[in-house]
């Protein structure tokens, strides 16, 4: 490699580092915001859960269409990925988990209704011949309430109408900045345990945001006009909370995964640029040495005459 080639290469590596460095910083800020937002949905989720728990310690006694399991002939699957790449294995993990869920459902392609958030999932499933019932872009950092309402109303309505017999979700759970995992849950038929798990996930175990404020259940409860009507209002709302939370978790995961990926890229390019500089210096030294020895050789030859 000539000196000039090496120099060009060093410059291009440095430029790449500037870009990855900038993306890292941006992702760090976005990640913090996403985490904050995840906490804002918490009071609602907790209140909804406690109402439900007080209504009935176990949903077994409550025969509501949304809590009744039945044989699965057709299923809905909600997959959340990001719109853009450059975030490590995040999307690949979600897609792999979705494939696993689809395999366990054991249904034909045409019997699976897919609701996808994010362009990555849309592209992946679009290429493989699935029916995309609806797709949403996941580009903004805020979760759009209208998209959320629409998808939640749609799955609840389809489930009640018997068009689909189960609704699964696959998303990325945010554990920490360095750890995200692809998770799958059953949204419908609704189960109290499932929801309790999710609310537990919203409230951190310890730290600044951890809090436990048990509100003891009253001995008697007036339920008007009837339990089933209260549940009819409450359960679709819980489904919405579920989906909302899932989107926020995915957002937080996306940004932290991207931050880590970009940090690795920046570090790598720094190493590369260092190594290239060394090669550059060595080559330059060799060239100088050669030139000097040529000059010396020339002088000696002339002195000999």
């Amino acid at each position, binding site marked *: 490699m000539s000196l000039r080639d090496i120099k060009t290469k060093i410059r291009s590596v440095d430029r790449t580092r500037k870009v990855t460095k900038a993306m890292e910083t941006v992702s760090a800020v976005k990640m913090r915001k996403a985490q904050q937002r995840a906490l804002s949905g918490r009071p*609602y989720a907790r*209140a*909804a859960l406690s*109402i439900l728990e*007080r209504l009935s310690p176990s949903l077994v006694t409550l025969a509501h269409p949304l809590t009744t399991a039945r044989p699965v002939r057709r299923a809905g699957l909600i997959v959340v990925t990001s719109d853009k790449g450059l975030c490590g294995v995040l999307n690949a993990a979600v897609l792999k988990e979705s494939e696993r869920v689809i395999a366990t459902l054991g249904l034909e392609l045409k019997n699976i209704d897919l609701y996808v958030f994010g362009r990555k999932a849309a592209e992946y499933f679009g290429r493989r011949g699935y029916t995309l019932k609806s797709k949403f872009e996941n580009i903004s950092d805020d979760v759009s309430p209208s998209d959320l309402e629409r998808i939640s109303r749609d799955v609840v309505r389809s489930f009640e109408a018997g068009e689909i017999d189960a609704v699964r979700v696959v998303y990325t759970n945010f554990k920490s900045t360095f750890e995200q995992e692809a998770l799958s849950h059953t949204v419908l038929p609704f189960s109290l345990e499932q929801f309790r798990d999710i609310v537990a996930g919203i409230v951190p175990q310890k730290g600044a945001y951890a809090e436990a404020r048990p*509100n003891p*259940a009253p001995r008697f409860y*007036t339920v008007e006009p009837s339990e089933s009507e*209260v549940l009819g209002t409450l359960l679709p709302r819980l489904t919405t909370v579920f989906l*909302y939370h899932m989107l926020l978790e995915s957002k937080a995961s996306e940004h932290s995964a991207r931050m880590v990926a970009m940090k690795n890229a920046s570090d790598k390019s720094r190493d590369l640029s260092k190594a290239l500089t060394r090669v550059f210096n060595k080559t330059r030294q060799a060239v100088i040495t050669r030139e000097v020895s040529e000059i010396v050789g020339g002088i000696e030859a002339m002195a000999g005459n």
Partner: protein
Amino acid sequence: MYITIARVHENLFSGQAVSITAPGADGELTILSTHEPLVVPLTKGIITVRTAEHGEVYECEGGVLEVSNNQVTVLL
């Protein structure tokens, strides 16, 4: 009486209040302090919260109202 009114993605109101009027499924109802424990679905209408100083109004497209231990929780 402590009142919380929340939507999935935002908290609309939380604080002490004198009364809350909401459109229940069986007709409008007003909750005052130390109301008995109650769960009621809400229909489309307007929710009015009266605090000691002023009143606040929220639109309601449907939801659930719960009263227990002198706490009112409204989920829209």
